[in-house]
């Protein structure tokens, strides 16, 4: 495949996918909680945009529906819920930066290289232009994982979780032009329920440790029990 042989719309898809990857880096490093939620909303909007443009280029109508669903859920509803929660938890001015930003960023770059290496044998066989995005979506998935590992704040961990879902959705769109409708609806439902439950847990966690810094959730370890 030669890049210049793609149509402008197809190039746009790849461009948007690359921007999705950038937003997941931004999510990993963003210190301000409210900005992180905005970044997540942008990521959702970009994923929806990818879906729409893929739908336009491949003329698959059900992708319009899943794109709209993503836009509604990931770019509007979930960011709005998180916004409301942070206001109610009085976290709207919360700032917490990474401990070793350069190192973690390099780890994230390594994740991108790793995921490319992982899917390389797979995408080499295919001629459809969106195949390359599978590597990007796997990296979004893994960087979301990194976010959950390295950020100790519960809301940011949830953002990481949701961004993993974005990566999964991107993978489904790019590799297979979307999953069957029933599965997509089910996944969306699960994500929504998960978000509601996360909201419940924010309050439960704050009630129990008076903070949302989940690093302080450390009662249940093998070593502590030894001391008892």
């Amino acid at each position: 495949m030669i890049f210049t042989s793609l149509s402008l719309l197809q190039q746009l898809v790849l461009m948007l996918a690359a921007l999705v990857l950038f937003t997941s880096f931004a999510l990993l490093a963003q210190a301000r909680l409210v900005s992180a939620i905005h970044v997540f909303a942008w990521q959702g909007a970009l994923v929806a945009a990818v879906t729409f443009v893929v739908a336009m280029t491949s003329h698959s109508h059900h992708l319009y529906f899943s794109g709209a669903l993503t836009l509604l859920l990931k770019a509007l509803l979930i960011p709005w819920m998180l916004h409301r929660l942070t206001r109610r938890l009085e976290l709207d001015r919360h700032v917490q930066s990474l401990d070793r930003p350069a190192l973690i960023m390099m780890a994230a770059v390594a994740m991108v290289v790793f995921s490319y290496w992982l899917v390389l044998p797979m995408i080499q066989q295919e001629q459809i232009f969106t195949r390359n995005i599978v590597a990007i979506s796997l990296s979004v998935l893994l960087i979301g994982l990194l976010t959950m590992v390295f950020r100790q704040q519960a809301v940011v961990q949830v953002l990481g979780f949701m961004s993993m879902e974005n990566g999964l959705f991107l993978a489904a769109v790019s590799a297979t032009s979307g999953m069957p409708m029933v599965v997509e609806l089910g996944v969306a439902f699960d994500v929504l329920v998960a978000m509601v439950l996360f909201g419940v847990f924010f309050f439960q966690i704050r009630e129990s440790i008076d903070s949302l810094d989940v690093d302080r959730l450390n009662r249940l370890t093998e070593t502590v029990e030894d001391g008892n």
Partner: protein
Amino acid sequence: MDHFLNMAPWGLALLQALLYAALGPLLVGWVRKVKARLQNRRGAPIIQPYRDLWKLFAKEARVAHTASPVFRSAPYIVFVATWLAAATIPLVATNLPTAAIADIIALVGLLALARFFLALVGMDVGTAFGGMGASREMLVSALAEPAMLVAVFSLAMTAHSTNLASVVEYHLNSGLVLRPSFLFALGGLLLVALAETGRIPVDNPATHLELTMIHEAMLLEYSGRHLGLMEWAAQIKLVLYGTLIVNIFFPWGIAQSLTPVALGVGLAAIVTKLLILGAALAVAETVLAKMRLFRVSAFLNLSLLLSLLGLLSHIILEVGA
């Protein structure tokens, strides 16, 4: 006549190099003017930098007692190295004879040479500010240089050449292509350019505030023509980065043949593009605040990250298929 025709391109190359030197103060004057207007001031006339340079060259150059010969020769070395570096970048036309040496590696090398001497003279006299400025300059460049190289490599990989003229021609010939790698490389290079030319938010060219200055701190001991050369070199560097960015990412308009019409269009195009870029720079400097020195590393890490993403997205999205 034949002889003259053979010489004409070389003459044009020389003219282009002179144009760089001439455009330097103009761009700085333009940026200052726009900035002043944005801040509701009338501001100095656009040609004020020329007048400043003229005045500096007329003045006597005083040199500290403790200064070594390096101190005297450095302004010439810095100026010539910067100017040479600028001359390698296609400004008005692509297929000039200098295109053969218009290599990205050479460009980076020449800039590094200039920076080396700049930092050296910062420490040469032995004042506190000079050393401080030199150390900060090295910090910035140590972070900015890898970012720039990576960004430039992702461009070079697309064009399969590290020659700037061929990179520009490649893009002209391939027409409008939305490359993710270009977007990231553009972002990365913009940040590098801000840092390397000492603009806000990394350095503030308008002040001599002890605690924050980087570039100015190294020049404190200079006066007269030495200072003039150093300032001029800095102005050329701004044009250099501006041209690098506009001509690589938006190469349209640049002359591909040496006819008078094409050259005229090329000149008009580059002047317009630089004016737009200068105005954008002025807006950015008005909106942004200078950041603490310790935040600079984060800023440059971002540019490195952007460049790396550019490289990766080039490999993943544009090649791997």
